[in-house]
C-alpha cells in the first residue's frame, strides 16, 4: 500500500503524517497524532462521537479520509479550551452533570460549539435537531440540552 504524506493544521498547529488512503481522519488523529479525544463509537457516521470541524464545517471524522485533510484546518475537542480557561460549554457540561460515562462528551462539545457559533440563541428544538447525530446512551439528553442552553445564555451575556 502506498502511503500518502499529509500536511494539515490541527487546533492551530501544523502537523504531518503518512496515511494509508483507507485510513479515516479519525484513525489518523488517534493513531498517528495521539489525539484520542475524538472517539469511534460506530464508524458509520451514526453516533457523532468522532465529531470534529474541518475548515469550520462540522463532520464525523470517521467519514473523512485522512488524505482529504491535506491543507485543511481541523479542530477537535482538545482545542476547545483556551489554555487553562475552559470554554463555557465545557464548564456547563460539568456543572449540569451533562455527562455520565463521558464517551460522547467530546463529540457533543464540538457539535454544540459549532452550533453556537452559527446560532447564538437556539431554541430547545433547534438544539435537539442539531445534536440528533450525537448519540448519548446515559443521560437521556435532558442535562446535555440544559447545559447547551445555559452556555449559550452565558455567552450571549458576555458578548
Amino acid at each position, binding site marked *: *500500500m*502506498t502511503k*500518502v504524506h499529509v500536511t494539515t493544521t490541527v487546533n492551530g498547529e501544523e502537523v504531518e503524517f503518512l496515511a*494509508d*488512503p*483507507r485510513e*479515516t481522519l479519525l484513525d489518523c488523529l488517534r493513531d498517528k497524532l495521539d489525539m484520542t479525544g475524538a472517539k469511534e463509537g460506530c*464508524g*458509520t*457516521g*451514526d453516533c*457523532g462521537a468522532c*465529531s470534529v470541524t*474541518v475548515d469550520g*464545517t*462540522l*463532520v*464525523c471524522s*470517521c*467519514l*473523512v*479520509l485522512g*488524505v*482529504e485533510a491535506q491543507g485543511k484546518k481541523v479542530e477537535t475537542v482538545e482545542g476547545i479550551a483556551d489554555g487553562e480557561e475552559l470554554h463555557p460549554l465545557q464548564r456547563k457540561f460539568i456543572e449540569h452533570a451533562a455527562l455520565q460515562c463521558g464517551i460522547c462528551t467530546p463529540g457533543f462539545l464540538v*457539535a454544540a460549539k*459549532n*452550533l453556537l457559533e452559527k446560532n447564538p440563541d437556539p431554541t430547545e428544538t433547534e438544539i435537539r*435537531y*442539531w*445534536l*440528533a*447525530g*450525537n448519540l448519548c446512551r446515559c443521560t437521556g439528553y435532558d442535562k446535555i440540552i440544559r447545559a447547551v442552553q445555559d452556555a449559550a445564555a452565558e455567552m450571549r451575556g458576555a458578548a
Partner: protein
Amino acid sequence: MKYHTPSTFEDASALAASAPGVTRFLAGGTDVLVQLRAEIVTPDDLIDIKHIPGVKEIARTKDGGWRIGVAVSGAELGAHAELVSEWPGVVEGMELVGSTQVQGRATLVGNLCNGSPAADSVPGLVAAGATVTITGPGGTRELAVEEVPAGPGKTSLAKGEVISAVHLPPRGDNAGDAYLRFIPRTEMDIAVVGAAVSLRLDGDTVTEARVALGAVAPTVVLVSDAAAALIGSSLDDAALDALAAAATAACNPIDDKRGTVEFRTEVAGVLVKRAARIAYARAKGEK
C-alpha cells in the same frame, strides 16, 4: 487503494475509464466511506472530485434555473436562501439526509449515485424535473434524474462516466414543491417512505404537477397517474384521495427491517397527500 485528485472532470473520467479494478468517485464520502470501513466495497481506485474547479458552486443559469456543483454539501444547499425559496422541497429532501455532521459532507449527486431507492434527496429532484450533466469518455450528455438509478445500488452510468453537475429548471410563478419522508425516529433513519410533489397553479387550480415516491420500489419512481390526479383540481378531498390511490398503486416495496409492504404502501398514500398540501400552500405563497 489508490487515491486520486484530478483537476478536471475529463481527467476524472479518464482515470475511471482506464482503471482495471473497482472504482469509486469521492465527493462527500458519507456512503463511500461507510462501505469502505465495513469492507462492503474496497475500491482499487478512489477518485476525489473535490479538487475540480466549480464543484462547490451554486449558480443561476441563463434560463433562470440553477446549476449545482457536485460537491455542494447539504448544509451549503440549505444555506442558499434564494435556492431554498425557489425549491424548498428539493432542499428539504437533501437536508433530511443524515445528521448535522453528515450534512457537512453529503451531496445530491452522492445520494443519487449511491442508488438507494430510499435516497431522501432524489424524489424532490425527480419531482422538480432536475437533470444531470454526465462527463464520459465520449464527451458529455444530459440525463433526467429519474433515469440515473437503475435498481438498488445501481446506476445507468457507464464505466468512466461521472456526473459533473446538477441542473434545476427555472421555478417560474405560482409554483411550489415539498418533500416528506417517514422514519420511525425524528432523525438519523433511512426513509421508510418518501414522497415529493411539485406543482404549479393557475388561481386555485393545479395546472402542472410531478409526483415522485421513494423507498416503495427498486428505484425512486415518478408517478404520472398521481400527477394526473392533481392536475385540474384545486386539491379538494376527491383529488387528494385519487392522488393517494394512484401513489398506493405505484408502490412495489419490499418487506424488511425498516418497514413492511403493507406499511410502506399505506403510508405512501398518507405522505403524498400531506406533501401535496404543503406544495400547494407554497405555490399560493403561504409559508
